[in-house]
Structure formats: structure tokens, C-alpha cells
């Protein structure tokens, strides 16, 4: 039994179907990436796991079904959500942003805050700064930090590198790797940047117009010439 099992998942916005029959599994302690273009359904997939959309199919965490649960209950079971960094609370300080994440795990607030500030010392320095004044990279850190405040065993990270400088992407990758290796977090990440995703994830899924087109390890997908052309932007290889 995998840690996260997504089975026959379809998601709808009103009558429009955004995901169709998606099957994805994530093992405990693994980093899995979903790659896809704009509109492929990446964010919808994460929204569906956390209970923000109406879905058909089943999502199970450690064997327990999450389907139909309220978002608050899903977060309490250990799923943290770091949405795209545009989804912060812009006119609140870094600390207040993090504190909103601390509701479900309020007894561990101190410990989690320490973890976040240890991971991103820059946030500790700027804890009283309002997030709309921050750089993209800092905001991405706040988004990740807010998810970590919920005491997760699995975090969903939505397009962490979108629009960020390469150097900052490396920082984010380092942080995610550290969370995975030192803190044992299972991570499901969505990306348009396939190279970034491959450097991180042990397993990847390609999502196109709401369906999983292809799945495999980084090596397997990297070797596929068609995919290389479509997603990796470099058909000649290094």
C-alpha cells in the first residue's frame, strides 16, 4: 500500500472537467513530480487532494480515504499545501502568514516555527515584513513555510520555481531535498520546469489536458525523445 494513492480521480469546475481518471501513487519518503503545461490540471490535482474541488474517484492517505473530507480534516491528517506563491496573504507579515498555517497544529507552533526559520533564515530576519513587499523567492519560502506549520507528513508543492531566478530555484530545491531527507517528508510537487522536477523527483508523471500521459522514473522519461522535445527543451542532450 502506497502512502498516497490517487485512484480514478476526476475533478470538475461546475460542469467543466479539469481532471480525468488520474491514477498516481506516492510512496512514503518519496519525492514525486507532476509535469505539465499551463492548464494541464496540475493545480487542480493538488486542490483536489486537499479537498478544495468537487471530485470523483478516491484519494487515500496511508490507507484512509480523504475523499469527501473537509480541507481542515485533510490538513489535520498531515497533508500540507504550499500553493503558488501568489496565494499568500499580501498585507500580512511573514510571521502572520506562517501563523495562519499554525492553526491545526498549534501545540507544535514553536517547534515548527524553528524548523521554518532554520530552513529559511531569511524569513527569520524578515519576519515582520509584509509579504507583498518581498521578492518571489522569499514569497515561495513563506508559502512552503506556511505548509510546514501544519505539521505535515506529506506536502503538496505547486510550481515552486515559476518565474524564479535559477539561483533561487537551487535554494528551493535544496530546501525540498533537506525536508525530504532530514525530516522524512513525502513530497508531491508540480512543475513546468521539467529539468528542475527531474533533478528532484524519483518518479514523474506527465499531465496533459487533465490526464496522465506518461509516468516513469527520471531516467525513463529523460530517455524518451518525444518527451525530451516537448518538455526538456533540449533534444541534443548534454
Amino acid at each position: 500500500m502506497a502512502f498516497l494513492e490517487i485512484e480514478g480521480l476526476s475533478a470538475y469546475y461546475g460542469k467543466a472537467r479539469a481532471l480525468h481518471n488520474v491514477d498516481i501513487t506516492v510512496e512514503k519518503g518519496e519525492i514525486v513530480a507532476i509535469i505539465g503545461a499551463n492548464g494541464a490540471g496540475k493545480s487542480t490535482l493538488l486542490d483536489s487532494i486537499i479537498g478544495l474541488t468537487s471530485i470523483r474517484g478516491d484519494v487515500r492517505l496511508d490507507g484512509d480515504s480523504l475523499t469527501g473530507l473537509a480541507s481542515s480534516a485533510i490538513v489535520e491528517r498531515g497533508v500540507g499545501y504550499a500553493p503558488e506563491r501568489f496565494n499568500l496573504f499580501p498585507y500580512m507579515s511573514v510571521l502572520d502568514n506562517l501563523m495562519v498555517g499554525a492553526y491545526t497544529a498549534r501545540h507544535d507552533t514553536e517547534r515548527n516555527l524553528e524548523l521554518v526559520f532554520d530552513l529559511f533564515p531569511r524569513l527569520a530576519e524578515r519576519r515582520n515584513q509584509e509579504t507583498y513587499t518581498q521578492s518571489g523567492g522569499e514569497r515561495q519560502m513563506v508559502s512552503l513555510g506556511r505548509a510546514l506549520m501544519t505539521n505535515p507528513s506529506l506536502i503538496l508543492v505547486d510550481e515552486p520555481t515559476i518565474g524564479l531566478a535559477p539561483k533561487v530555484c537551487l535554494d528551493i530545491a535544496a530546501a525540498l531535498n533537506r525536508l525530504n531527507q532530514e525530516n522524512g517528508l513525502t513530497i508531491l510537487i508540480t512543475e513546468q520546469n521539467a529539468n528542475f522536477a527531474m533533478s528532484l523527483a524519483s518518479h514523474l508523471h506527465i499531465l496533459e489536458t487533465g490526464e496522465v500521459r506518461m509516468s516513469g522514473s527520471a531516467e525513463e522519461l529523460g530517455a524518451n525523445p518525444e518527451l525530451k522535445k516537448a518538455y526538456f527543451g533540449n533534444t541534443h542532450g548534454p
Partner: protein
Amino acid sequence: MGIRWQHLAAWAVFIIFMLALPEFVSKGTLRTIIFANFLAIFAISWDVLSGRTGYISFGHPFLIGIGAYTSAILSYRFGFPIALSIPLAVVAAMIGGTLFFLPALRIRGSYFALVTLAFMELMYQLVQVIRPDITGGTRGISGVETITRGAVNNFYLSFCLMALVAFSMWLLMKSRLGTALSAIGMNEESVRGSGLDTTKLKLAAFMIAAFVAGLGGAFYVHYLGSIAPRALFDINFLFTIIVAALIGGASTIIGPMIGAFFLTFLLEYLRPVLPGAERYFIYGGIALILYMYQPKGIYEVAKQGWGRIQAARAGAGS
């Protein structure tokens, strides 16, 4: 966030200053301040709901009206003591707040605002049509028992009520609840994604706002001694509340207080010059200019001004 001793000191200075005020100003000014106190209560109530969560209420007079009418009817028609009619009025307003809340589960933005406006209009009509023998119909009720007499006593009463409301709301909004409500106003989905039950939080906000509005409305009717639907369920009254909250600085407690005093005195001092409703144009204009210059309101302007003075001093000192 966090409460610092400077904050508490500022509260103490403000309260002492206000309590000493009757020694220095005329009875007429006190009467103006009484109205400002009540307007501040209403504006704080509006701000807790709309300034924080972004659910813009156009129906606040509905909540205030339930409080005022319930207490007036209970005490005037049925002989309830005020000590009982006011708490009951607050409960009634909170029930009204729950009604308010139902559309908020499904709709947001301008639609929510319009629905709440409909609540106010509905109440205006109902009060006149249904059982006018109880509500007093179009003419309302006069001769409602007052709690105390005289400008000075009423000043103390209204100020204590306002200070109590403001201080307790300030404490409440400094808590996790306040942070969460503001977060809802900025991005409700994200609040849900962080594991918070936004339905419960919004219900709490509606209840708190209704509690304060009902309390203010009930005390207000026992200050005025009369109530009439035209004065209460009125678009000018509604906008005075909203503009007070916004002009002072939404999402703060001091903002609506500043706004209420500013507006009340502005309207009062314009009275000899512009006796009619033209006065409302003036404050509309002031509100417009202020929003264009600083959407966060007078409080922010003052804060930045103070910051500049400090910076200039520091510059001169070095």
C-alpha cells in the same frame, strides 16, 4: 501582531483624556461626541465583519435595527426592564447575524453586498407593514425609556460602552481569530488550504459583528428615546458607517474610531454652512480624495506622518 505595553499605554491615555473631557467642552460638543461614540461602535462592528473578511455588508442598519427595535418594543410595549431588554435585543441581533450568514456560504463579492442591502430594505418595509401596533409603523416609537439623562451622563455611558467594545474587539482581533479573519479577506481558498474551517470562522465574524451592532443599536435607542424606520434603515446612515470605517482605516480598531469622530465633527461643523443633505457630498468628496491618496485611511496617513517626523528628527540629531 502581539500586544505591546505602548499599546496599552495609548489606550490608558485615550481613556483618561476622554473621561476628563466634560470638564472642558460644552454640552453641545458632548452631544456630538455621543453620536460619534455610537457611530464608532457601528463602524467597528462593520469593520470586524467587512473590513477583515472582505464580505462587504450593506445591511448593517438591519443588525443595528433589530437590536434597537427589539429593545424598544420589549421595554416600551411589554414593560421589560432595560437590563433585560438589551441582552435580549443583542440575542435577537445575533440571530439576525445568522440569517445574514446564510447567503455568505454561497455567494461572495458584490452579490453578497446586494443581498445584505436587500435585508435592510426588507426590514424597512416589514417594520411598517407588519403589526404597526407593536412597531409603531412609519412613525416608529417615541417615549422609549432612557437609561440616564443629561449630556454628561450620556457622554460617560456612550463612551464607556464604546471603549469597552473597542478594547475587547482590539484584544480579539489581536488573537489568532483576528489574523485568520484578515487572511480570509485576502485569500479565502488559501485559508482553507491551510486547514482552517472558514465556515466556522466566518460565522464567528458575523456573530461578533451582530453582537456589537445589536448592543450599540439597543443602547442607542435608549439614548435617543425614540426610533423611526426612516432614520434607521437609511442609505445615508449605512454609508456614514461604511465611510467612517474606511476613511479612518479599515482592518484596524482605531481606524473606525478616528473615522467616526472625524465624520461626525465634519458633518456638525458643516451644518451652519450647508444645512441640507449637501453635506454628504462634502464627505463623499473627502472620502474620494483620501482613498486615491491613501486607501488605508487617516490612521495610515497619521502613522506615516509620524514616521517622517521621527526620521527627520533622527536625521537632524546625527
